[in-house]
């Protein structure tokens, strides 16, 4: 079949978003019917977002038929059981948001209500002590979850720390091997179809003009097609998420990698630490109003735990989202559609979910119908869910030590978040929803981790004797500790990957393992 008869998909931009999109489309779209091309320029650097991921990435790789061991070796990946937050509640506080559950309900009453009762009596351990994923993470241990287990081994999921640039390269090789055509060049102009308002073609610095039926904008912050060409406006969330800069640098690995990401709050934002097998990724996120770029870079360099492997690189951003991720014949994926800081490692997830929804609601040949409306509404919801969860971290700080954090805790929350917080604060219940990321286990980790103890708990937990509740919770904790003894260290688990001998479990679209 000739190219003229094929539907043309043109991806603009070749970072993580571009190559993830190219790989997924090349996996599913029939080359008999589609031509997939990707334009990128070696002269333009990529942001290389998302060195830390959440468990959903396993499902994406699975969908592409990628062997997990091979992927881990190619991207210098380590395992990840959650994120440790330092100084987000009190200045000296620390908690882990795990990819796992914490205890079980009894007679239909959630575990955390029992914990709240013991906490009120001063007899509770920290909430994370009842979570296997937290215990394993802090002990530096890792093994695969066992979906058939009724105990703690069946109640967690895992993700990876990876080199995003290597991941993009890995997927590029995957896509190129499946008929994706890579075109080197910089986009210098775009051409609109005057009658429909859709994008007709792009023009490269080489003078080449590329036409397509569907344009996928993966051009990063510049949002060349959706933002600059189609003028889809950007909704800023700066009033809720005040940081607008990050400075990033890798450093030498000086110790065995932790199986968790670290997020340290500082006077004007926060700092990440992401351990890979070969190096450690570091970054400092800050509000430019309160900290200069030089100050941030010095601060970051001073806090590295090994020698820096290059010069710190400043990234400017504004948190927010385009009003529509899909307009006319252009679908923006990744930073071109919106940006949320990587506090909960959601960057790659938002790319993944955009790709999966694009495949679900792929535009029809004869024109676009309701699929665009549904896609936009579902992507808006995904962004809003993550946004609210990130805002919670800032708002819930209990640091009165400086103006930045005081302003954060005084901010007016979005209505959707106010309702969730009020529900928890007044009666200890966690709002449940089926769509979007972050279920009650995540909300509880942050609420309780940052010290929001509700005014009341479910009074049904007062019915059993206190000693019985104490015994039950202790049994949960000891169950975790007992299982932990048999777990190999994270370093040992990574060695298996090197040797290609790891038999990983099936993936699932859940943050907490296969049970949820």
């Amino acid at each position, binding site marked *: 079949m000739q190219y003229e008869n094929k539907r043309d998909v043109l991806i603009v931009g070749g970072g993580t978003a571009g190559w993830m999109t190219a790989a997924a489309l090349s996996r599913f779209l*029939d080359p008999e019917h589609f031509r997939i091309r990707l334009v990128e320029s070696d002269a333009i650097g990529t942001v290389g977002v998302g060195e830390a991921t959440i468990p959903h990435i396993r499902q994406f790789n699975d969908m592409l038929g990628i062997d997990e061991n091979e992927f881990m070796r190619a991207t210098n990946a380590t395992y990840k059981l959650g994120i440790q937050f330092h100084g987000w509640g009190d200045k000296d506080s620390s908690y882990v948001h795990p990819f796992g559950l914490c205890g079980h309900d009894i007679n*239909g009453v959630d575990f955390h209500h029992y914990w709240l009762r013991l906490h009120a009596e001063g007899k509770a351990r920290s909430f994370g002590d009842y979570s296997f994923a937290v215990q394993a993470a802090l002990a530096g241990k890792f093994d695969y979850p066992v979906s058939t287990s009724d105990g703690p081994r069946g109640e967690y999921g895992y993700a990876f720390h990876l080199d995003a640039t290597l991941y993009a390269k890995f997927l590029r090789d995957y896509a190129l091997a499946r008929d994706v055509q890579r075109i080197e060049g910089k986009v210098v102009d775009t051409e609109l179809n005057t009658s429909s308002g859709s994008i007709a073609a792009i023009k490269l610095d080489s003078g080449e003009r590329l036409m397509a039926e569907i344009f996928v904008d993966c051009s990063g912050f510049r949002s060349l097609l959706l933002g600059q060409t189609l003028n889809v406006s950007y909704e800023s969330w700066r009033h809720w998420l005040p940081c607008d800069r990050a400075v990033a640098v890798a450093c030498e690995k000086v110790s065995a990698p932790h199986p968790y990401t670290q997020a340290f709050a500082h006077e004007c934002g926060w700092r990440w630490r992401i351990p890979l097998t070969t190096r450690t990724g570091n970054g400092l996120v800050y509000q430019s109003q309160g900290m200069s770029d030089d100050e941030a870079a010095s601060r970051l360099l001073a806090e590295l735990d090994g020698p820096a492997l290059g010069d710190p690189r400043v990234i400017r951003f504004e948190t927010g989202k385009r009003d529509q991720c899909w307009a006319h014949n252009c679908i923006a994926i990744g930073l071109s559609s919106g940006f949320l800081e990587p506090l909960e490692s959601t960057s790659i997830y938002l790319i993944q979910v955009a790709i999966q929804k694009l495949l679900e609601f792929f535009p029809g040949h004869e024109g676009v*119908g*309701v*699929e665009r*409306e549904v896609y936009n509404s579902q992507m808006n919801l995904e962004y809003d869910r993550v946004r609210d969860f990130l805002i919670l971290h800032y708002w819930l700080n209990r640091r009165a030590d400086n103006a930045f954090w005081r302003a954060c805790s005084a901010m007016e929350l979005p209505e959707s978040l106010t309702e969730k917080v009020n529900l928890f*604060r007044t009666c200890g219940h966690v709002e449940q929803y089926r*769509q979007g990321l972050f279920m009650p286990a995540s909300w509880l980790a942050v609420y309780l981790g940052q010290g929001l103890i509700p005014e009341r708990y*479910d009074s049904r937990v007062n019915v059993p004797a206190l000693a019985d509740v104490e015994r039950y919770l202790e049994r949960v904790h000891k169950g975790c500790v007992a299982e932990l003894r048999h777990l190999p260290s994270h370093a040992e688990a990574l060695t298996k990957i090197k040797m290609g001998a790891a038999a990983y479990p099936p993936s699932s679209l859940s943050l907490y393992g296969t049970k949820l």
Partner: protein
Amino acid sequence: MSEQPLKHIAIVGQGVELWFSTVFLTAALKPFNVAVTCIELGGCANVNTAPLEALSPQVLRLLKLMQIGELDLIRQCRGGYSLGLDCRSVHNRFFVPHGELGLEPNDSVLVGAAYSNYAKRGIHNLDALSVAATAAQQGKFAVVGTDRPDLQALLRYGVHLETDRLVNFLKHQLTRLGATHVSAVNEPPVISLNRGQIASLLCSSGKKICADFWIDLSANGVLQEASKNVAMHSLLSGCSAVQVAQSWREAPPNSAARQLSTAENVLHDTLNSARIEQSSLYSDSEKALADLCASKPLARFDWQFSKKSYCALASIWDENCLRLGERALQIPGPAFSRLSLIMAALVQFVDQLPDAGVKPALIQSYNRNMSAYINEAFSFNATMFTLVNKSYRAAGDVPSQSEVFSRTGRLLPAATDAVEPQQWKSLLYGLMGAPALTDITLDRIASGDVNKALNELEKKIHGIASSMPNYADFLVRLLGR
């Protein structure tokens, strides 16, 4: 930290809804020392006098918590089973099963592939991909034991029970559980309020009942203050009520399914217990309904006519009262009985059981979740009326499931468990056929391979259904035990 717990709940109402709700709440809250009083209003007006009551699979799941043996209940109430809705229109016949399509979760891809494949082959239903549909159409049925978890999700069922026997059964359960029962309140009770909350109810007998929390199942909403401005959901555009005609006769069941058919633009819903067949006719035209009932062969039955409104309060939970009566919550049609809606409301209430004090945030969250549930239930019910060419549409349902499915073959994500995905898929494919767009992720799979995989799946499903017992024999054995 924890304030005064809820100690006493009073439920006011009549009929099977009152008894089922009371048994459920008593059993669910007994471990927590919450007392439940059941206040039975006198008179038969507005009580559901239909000879059969349908329990959905969701309601059946509550029996364990209620400490009721399912088989015992079915035997005592001379019940019949339903694996789903067997729908027949002038142009098509299709089954809307309670159980999953395919044999395992991965088969959902094949179900998607079946839309265009079947359409090309002139097959206008997904029945061959459903164990439930295949079994029901073969006159087969089985209750799956815990040793076959793989089949449990495929053969989920509801039951149809004789109402008077069910009431007696539930009354007996209530005695066993030790709930208080106050009956024969003939006059509208006098309600005392304290700071906007219902404090007590004075019966015509002079008995005064105090409770922390109230559940109003009464048809007229006796706990509703007359002065209160009640906001209703705007449920649908195009219709606010439906005319209903109901009749019954003694007849053994044909299959383990509820039947839905059309005649003269009237929706005809038939359900069977072991010995009774109950028919309900729905139409927006009183004349059309009367004409149909007067025509052969329906004229020989004794039809009871009524008008049922679509109702849903915007705030089911108000202060210390859940309002679940007919004027507060009703979606007439074959998909959702009042009892199933009430139980959904009570399950959520128990999940988030309040303390004695009212928490606005909790009420807001509850009402929002219930609104979502009602909207999804209503949307499914409204879509069913497409069978008789009525284009009712849930208000705010934009785009609707029908629009999204007919274009993309996908479903809008559900916010609640009111309707299972396979119910939507079977209904929408049966009504509309193949979507306009094919699943792009199947593009690389050769049609021959899809055919082969579908044939294999159909064959396996057919084999499973064939190996099941005959439904009539199954019922005879069950009831004869």
